[in-house]
């Protein structure tokens, strides 16, 4: 996945160089602030050389008879953490570009982003860590490794396509390019995922203290409940207030099938109970059909939004009250500890 200089235009190359340089600078400052740089640099150096050596090992793929090698990005992130791993991969890529002509000098920005940034800062924290936090065992390690590596390689391949297309170098249509890149990298990443899983499980079996030091058992990040609440409220406001503008006026699935079958979208029911509940609903509902009472047939935009907001707020209040009632009841039923 190493890109050569010839595939880039100056603009795209410079932008990606700036992005990667920024990410590197930030990672360096992060490592320094924890005071970890002194201890980490030797291990980062040897791990970088290890990735090099590991990439030299070709394995035979059973059915196709061809050979491949691992990338090592996610493996590094799993063992070192995202910031040291990113710096290590960047250094490895720089050396590959300088001494092995594997990827251009100008394309370093793109390569560091595609193979380092995406793996360490997007795939690893969002996929690998949460799965491992559920429990450090063989199954989780395997699932986490495979999923993270597949996703990070797909993202990386996708960005190669985007960077090349934005540079205007290739006439290959977007669809065709993607159709070539993604499946190949999917196959490669599956194998790399399996191997990385194998390596991590091997380490977990032989020297469990290494993995346990990195992923201690009781460290589950509980988000502050106030933050969660605020986020939920904002989300509701956003969805009710803004998104409901786009509420479709077409009949929903049920109404549409009813129309097709019975010729009308609302059942007409007769009977005492139905009449009573119908009139009850008419009195209570202060925004019938999600609109102001006095609105005309077409419906009004703000009516919809206000309805969304009002509905959201009411639901929130109901839910909060329910939760409060339940927790109060629980507290009362718990036996008081004897002093």
């Amino acid at each position: 996945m190493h890109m050569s200089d010839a595939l880039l235009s100056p603009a795209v190359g410079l932008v990606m160089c700036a992005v990667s340089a920024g990410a590197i600078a930030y990672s360096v400052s992060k490592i320094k602030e924890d005071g970890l740089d002194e201890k980490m640099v030797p291990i980062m150096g040897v791990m970088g050389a290890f990735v090099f050596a590991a990439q030299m090992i070709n394995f035979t793929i059973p059915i196709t008879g061809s050979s491949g090698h691992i990338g090592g990005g996610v493996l590094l992130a799993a063992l070192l953490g995202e910031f040291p791993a990113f710096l290590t991969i960047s250094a490895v890529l720089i050396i590959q570009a300088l001494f092995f002509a594997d990827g251009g000098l100008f394309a370093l920005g793109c390569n560091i982003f595609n193979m380092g940034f995406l793996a360490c800062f997007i795939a690893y924290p969002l996929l690998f860590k949460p799965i491992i936090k559920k429990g450090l065992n063989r199954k989780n390690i395997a699932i986490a490794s495979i999923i993270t590596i597949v996703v990070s390689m797909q993202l990386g391949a996708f960005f190669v396509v985007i960077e090349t297309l934005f540079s205007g170098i290739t006439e290959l249509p977007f669809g065709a390019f993607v159709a070539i890149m993604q499946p190949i990298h999917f196959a490669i990443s599956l194998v790399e995922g399996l191997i990385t899983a194998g390596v991590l499980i091997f380490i977990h079996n032989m020297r469990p203290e290494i993995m346990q030091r990195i992923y201690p058992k009781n460290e589950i990040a509980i988000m502050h409940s106030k933050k969660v609440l605020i986020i939920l409220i904002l989300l509701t406001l956003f969805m009710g207030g803004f998104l409901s503008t786009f509420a479709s006026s077409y009949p929903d699935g049920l109404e549409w099938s009813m129309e097709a079958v019975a010729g009308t979208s609302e059942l007409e029911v007769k009977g005492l109970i139905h009449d009573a509940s119908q009139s009850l609903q008419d009195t209570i509902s202060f925004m019938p059909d999600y609109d102001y009472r006095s609105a005309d047939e077409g419906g009004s935009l703000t009516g919809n939004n206000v309805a969304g907001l009002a509905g959201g707020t009411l639901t929130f209040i109901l839910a909060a009250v329910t939760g409060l009632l339940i927790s109060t009841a629980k507290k009362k039923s718990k036996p008081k500890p004897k002093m």
Partner: protein
Amino acid sequence: MFPGKKALQIANIKSKIVDIYMLEQLCNGNTFVHRLHPMVKLLTTVFFIIMVVSVNREDFRILTLYLFYPFVLMAVSETPYHYLLKQFALVLPLSALLGFSNIIFDTETALLIGPIELSYGVVSFFTIILKTYLTVMAALILVSTTSLQDLSNQMLRMRVPAIIIMLITMIYRYIDILLNETSIMLTAYLLRSPREKGIKISHMGSFVGQLLLRSIDRAERVYFAMKCRGYQGAVSYDSKRSLNIADYMYCVLVCSLALIFRFVDFVGLLGNMLI
């Protein structure tokens, strides 16, 4: 029993080691290019690469002028031509692939040579190949005439964080050691598996894992060794070297020629003179 694929795998690893240290040997030369200040070499290389990359496929003939850069420098620095060509050959496949796809997809006619029609696809194919050649050669000439020590010190002076510099130098040094380790493990494995041509995929986990454990142990020993020798965080030492008149002249010459060739159509003039 022929050596076959097993020996090839081990040889492949060893050849990488040879490659790295071949470049290091080349840096010990004493030609004009070797004596230039590292900053000048770094800046002119980057400038040259950016100029090459900025060429559109319509201005393809400018790239032929840019060929002077690698040819002249390789001659002056006495770099073995075939060695750099080998490195270039490794990079060619992906560029060739994209070039071929352009031939397929872009069939608009670009120019006519007598009765032969050349499409934009063909033109851009050659553009990509030439650009790859020029950029790769520029980078290789840089590293074959400037030692890693000088390059690192230069980057340090340009405010690249010391951690990165330390990482690069450490990885560079340890590649050899770890490749040797890998080669030993691979030989042992292949000697114990008569019918295998490579490592079975089911064994990759423990093979690479074993290598990883040994690397981790080695890293700890390295850390303690560095501490014993007074290591207190990433530091790099540098010997100051000032710019002289040759450096300035080289820089001005290369940058101005690159700019002139980019925007003045000398090749067209030459062609018109011939015809």
